């Protein structure tokens, strides 16, 4: 099976998956901001980033980033609890948020692209760190606002060059 995925497809699919999560399990308001493309990695970040890799005939990566206050609010909404600080439960909740959003994007694209695999999520929390996904040249950046908080979802997907080494290269890397 082969197909193509346009930037509009990515924006629509990521938006739908995010809206589904916010309306079912988070019950938080969600406003989509202006999507754009980015050819470089995001600058040094403070806060929480959750990354999920996609493998198969197409490979890619999904990245959900927000500051620590937003992460605590998302985790609190998901787990119906209150988190004043980022802890293990907040990180686990952010991993699951990424898993559900990127997992549903993956499932949606499988109808066009054939079977795809999903990595277990990786979550990073810290100050002034950089993440880098090797081989990614173009990210679709889809920002959202929930209340006063901002969430940024980055997504890339490209045809695989079929070698296992390429899939290995797409594993998220963290540079302190």
């Amino acid at each position: 099976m082969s197909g193509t995925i346009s930037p509009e497809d990515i924006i629509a699919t990521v938006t739908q998956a995010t809206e589904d999560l916010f309306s079912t399990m988070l019950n938080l308001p969600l406003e989509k901001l202006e999507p754009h493309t980015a050819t470089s990695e995001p600058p040094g970040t403070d806060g929480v980033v959750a990354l999920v890799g996609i493998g198969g005939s197409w490979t890619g990566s999904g990245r959900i980033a927000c500051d620590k206050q937003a992460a605590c609010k998302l985790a609190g909404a998901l787990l119906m609890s209150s988190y004043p600080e980022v802890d293990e439960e907040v990180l686990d909740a952010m991993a699951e948020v990424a898993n559900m959003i990127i997992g549903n994007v993956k499932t949606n694209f499988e109808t066009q692209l054939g079977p795809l695999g999903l990595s277990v999520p990786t979550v990073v929390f810290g100050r002034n760190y950089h993440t880098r996904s090797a081989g990614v040249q173009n990210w679709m950046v889809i920002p959202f606002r929930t209340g006063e908080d901002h969430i940024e979802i980055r997504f890339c997907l490209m045809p695989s060059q079929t070698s296992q080494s390429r899939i290995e290269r797409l594993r998220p890397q963290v540079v302190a």
Partner: protein
Amino acid sequence: MALDVMIVDDSAAIRKILHRVLVQAEVPLGQVHEACDGKDALEKLKSAKVGLILSDINMPNMDGIELLNRLKTDENFKSVPIVMVTTEGSQAKVLQALELGAAGYVRKPFTAEQIQEKLAGII
């Protein structure tokens, strides 16, 4: 009669949510066991008797499909209803789970009502 349940998911967040949904559903709940993957579930099922299993599909070590296959071919567990609660939405995986004997399938993200409706038809 109280129903003992096992929740199998590599996400502690999802295990916590499903536990809460079971309480909200007013299921006559007995003991709730948790396992982080299929291998962990099989180990814990050696000493735990359950009447319902909620399991994810994509998990490290042993996925939900393999767990389902093992339990449905085991005389001690083949009659225990197993509901797959998963982000995995590919037709092939869903069909495989149902063919292996899964009692139902709920896709994440889910509402408490979706879980409750699914369980109402099973227990």
